[in-house]
């Protein structure tokens, strides 16, 4: 079996290499059969990488310790679900998983574009194949997932206990999906530059891919935060760790890109900027992988350090140089007559939104790399941790939230001051009222007050936008408000999906501010039957219970939680000891409400004296972060949903292009 996996990877590499000249020569010489064979090679490459994946999964499920990877990241007692997720628990497996996703996306792009974008798609597929070749070369020659052991152990080393959590089952796949799918808009951007097809067709073709990538980057970051919250046991969810930063930066840049392309689609401006943004987003996905793999920067996430760093760095620098050169080569073709009338315009709001987003991304990048710079320049290793990032990013976040509210209130091209005052009045009143409410409730910290006021201001602008739309629709077609709302969103899904995403961002922002500023922490050692208070709660410890499975020993404490004398919950935090890995872990107990989370950690225990030590956090508004994530996901689905107008526009574009393309007969016969 391992030989089959290795053979599949070797064939995948050969097929990826073949697809590049076949695509490029075929498109250059007008040989549709050759281009079709390149497409088939990409599909075959996808099949080969899938076989390799299945072989490794089979090895993990069968606990085949002749495979070095399985012996290093699994054990016979590891639950089946974690045997499956162990595929991305280690270096070689996660690279294989990345390559598999890339091969799937390449295959989908080849399928989607088999009868359209016939000049640009082969180039885009060649770029994607180039990226795949790098990863396949790593898997074939540098870090081989099917390496065999000569001395086969009876038991594996086991998966890192921190990774034996259900959020780990979905966090890396989500993040990788976000990372890898960013390759598609990047590849089309590069192809547009090479082929000199510099209108916005590459943006329209990959718009849904860009949103798809953003969607999964959002989910990946949120799932990772939730994993940290549940597993690391420190009551927080974000520590500005380099690897967290590496996942956050592409999200910021992709967010900037999704806003900026709207200006290009509407006004044919910012072409260079949009191409630069998608290049940055893709580069940052590689940078994230480089940080995780290289060990250059110490990180709590460095589960899979290896010697891959120099290869990734070389690839990253090579891509950056090539893409920048390409952009500079075409810069004159990308210049278009700009149309900009006023700073009081939606265009200006988008420009400043981009400035702030990229500013935050730069600050995070700078802070992440500064320890390396310090060591190189001064020879002194320093730490750049949460105090730095919080101080630098917090004011920018306020600016971003303000722009998120102000943007929709300002018209394209220009707005008169009078109209601006009219538009801002209701949301500003809403924001000020929320701030006063918070102040009256006892919140006297200026940042939190400003943040909550701005959050309410943004919600106010979105409510106003929805109300206007529903009112206009009700007036026009005499629909009841509920139906008018549904039809409004359905027929303008991109715009209103965006607003729903903004609501989610505001919810998450409220949660971040609440949980960052007002966390309460109590650490107590108590005997069985004793109680202690945390905020409005009384926690009574009733004893320990232990349990043992072949995989893990569990000691669980029981706490009865009461509020105002009424029992509200029973909480059971635990200490775990993983036998194969010989490592302890923590299982926290969380009681979550929209107002606050009660978060209990069993910090230690003494069975002889029946004493247990608990670390308890009372953290306000954390719930809103996860709800915000759900709302963002919902908004993204709404925004991505194809609508009738868009399908008609795509069909018209395809029909229009069919007559221009070299392979017009094929396009005309099957064009959608």
């Amino acid at each position, binding site marked *: 079996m391992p030989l089959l996996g290795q053979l599949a990877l070797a064939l995948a590499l050969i097929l990826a290499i073949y697809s590049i000249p076949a695509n490029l020569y075929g498109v250059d010489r007008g040989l549709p059969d050759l281009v079709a064979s390149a497409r088939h090679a990409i599909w075959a490459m996808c099949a080969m990488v899938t076989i390799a994946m299945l072989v490794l999964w089979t090895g993990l499920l069968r606990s085949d310790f002749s495979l070095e990877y399985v012996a290093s990241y699994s054990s016979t007692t590891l639950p089946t679900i974690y045997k499956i997720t162990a595929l991305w628990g280690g270096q070689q497996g996660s690279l294989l998983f990345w390559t598999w996703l890339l091969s799937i996306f390449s295959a989908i792009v080849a399928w989607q574009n088999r009868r359209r974008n016939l000049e640009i798609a082969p180039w885009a597929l060649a770029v994607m194949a180039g990226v795949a070749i790098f990863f396949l070369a790593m898997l074939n020659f540098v870090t081989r997932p099917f390496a065999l052991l000569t001395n086969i152990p009876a038991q594996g080393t086991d998966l890192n206990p921190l990774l034996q959590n259900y959020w780990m089952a979905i966090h890396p796949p989500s993040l990788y999906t976000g990372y890898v799918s960013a390759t598609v808009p990047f590849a089309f951007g590069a192809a547009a530059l090479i082929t000199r097809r510099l209108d916005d067709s590459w943006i329209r073709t990959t718009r849904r891919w860009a949103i798809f990538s953003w969607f999964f980057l959002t989910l990946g970051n949120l799932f990772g935060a939730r994993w940290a919250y549940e597993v690391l046991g420190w009551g927080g969810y974000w520590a500005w760790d380099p690897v967290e930063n590496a996942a956050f930066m592409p999200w910021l840049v992709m967010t900037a890109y999704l806003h900026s392309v709207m200006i290009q689609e509407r006004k044919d401006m910012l072409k260079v900027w949009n191409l630069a943004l998608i290049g940055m987003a893709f580069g940052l996905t590689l940078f994230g992988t480089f940080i995780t793999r290289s060990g250059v920067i110490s990180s709590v996430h460095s589960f899979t350090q290896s010697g891959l760093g120099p290869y990734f760095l070389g690839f990253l620098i090579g891509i950056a140089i090539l893409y920048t050169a390409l952009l500079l080569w075409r810069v004159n073709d990308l210049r278009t007559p700009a149309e900009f*009338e006023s700073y009081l315009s939606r265009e200006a709001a988008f*420009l400043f939104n981009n400035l702030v987003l990229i500013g935050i991304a730069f600050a995070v990048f*700078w802070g992440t790399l500064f320890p390396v710079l310090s060591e190189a320049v001064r020879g002194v*290793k320093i730490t750049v*941790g949460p105090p730095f990032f919080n101080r630098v990013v917090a004011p920018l976040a306020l600016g971003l939230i303000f722009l998120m509210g102000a943007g929709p209130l300002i018209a394209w*091209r220009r707005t008169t001051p009078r109209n601006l005052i009219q538009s801002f009045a209701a949301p500003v009143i809403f924001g000020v009222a929320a701030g006063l409410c918070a102040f009256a409730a006892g919140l006297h910290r200026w940042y939190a007050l400003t943040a909550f006021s701005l959050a309410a201001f943004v919600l106010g602008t979105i409510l106003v936008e929805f109300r206007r739309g529903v009112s206009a629709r009700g007036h026009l077609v005499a629909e009841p408000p509920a139906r008018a709302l549904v039809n409004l969103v359905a027929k303008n899904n991109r715009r209103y999906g965006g607003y729903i995403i903004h609501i989610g961002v505001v919810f998450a922002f409220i949660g971040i501010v609440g949980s960052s500023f007002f966390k309460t922490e109590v*650490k107590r050692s108590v005997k069985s039957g004793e109680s202690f208070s945390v*905020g409005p709660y009384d926690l009574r410890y009733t004893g320990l219970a232990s349990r043992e499975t072949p995989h893990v020993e569990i000691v669980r404490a029981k706490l009865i939680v009461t509020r105002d004398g009424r029992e509200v919950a029973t909480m059971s935090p635990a200490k775990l000891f993983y036998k194969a890995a010989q490592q302890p872990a923590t299982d926290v107990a969380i009681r979550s409400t929209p107002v606050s989370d009660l978060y209990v950690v069993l910090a230690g225990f003494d069975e002889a004296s029946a004493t247990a030590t608990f670390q308890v956090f009372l953290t306000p508004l954390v719930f809103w972060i996860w709800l915000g994530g759900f709302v963002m996901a919902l908004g993204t689905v709404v925004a991505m949903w194809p609508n009738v107008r868009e399908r008609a526009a795509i069909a018209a574009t395809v029909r229009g292009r069919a007559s221009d393309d070299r392979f017009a007969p094929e396009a005309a016969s099957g064009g959608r």
Partner: protein
Amino acid sequence: MRLASIIAIIALVAGAEINAAAATQRFAKTTRDAVAEGLTCQCGCGLTVANCNHPNCEFAVPVREKIDKLIAQGMDGAQIIGLFRAQYGEKVLSAPTMQGFNLLAWVIPPIAIVLGAMLVIFTVSRWRATPSVDSARGASEPPPADDANPALRRELERRLREGM
């Protein structure tokens, strides 16, 4: 308005809860917390001494105890952090100092933002200096306003018609 009411209620309840918490025994943002957040744990967790997630951490636990002792001896936060810095080097600090080369860590991001803003303003000024034929005519979309604004209503109705 229902959403607004829910938000107001949650703000009030959260505020009340925070106040209630403040009235009970708790770890306030004391010197101890400030110092513990200013130091990075050296156990490899990557978190600050305040947040290290290892209950029996060989670094964070004794450091927290030592901070308590030094506070009891009358030392202030800066003195305590200075003491740990002298013992473990700069890497024990959770953020760069604001002097010498480290100052770059703090000043470069705001400088970059200011330069970026200047670039945006400069570019936009150039764009505004060469308006297109269309904008020179003064054509523009009607700005948003209240529903009472007939221009807005016409525009919305036009857009809705396009969408149906």
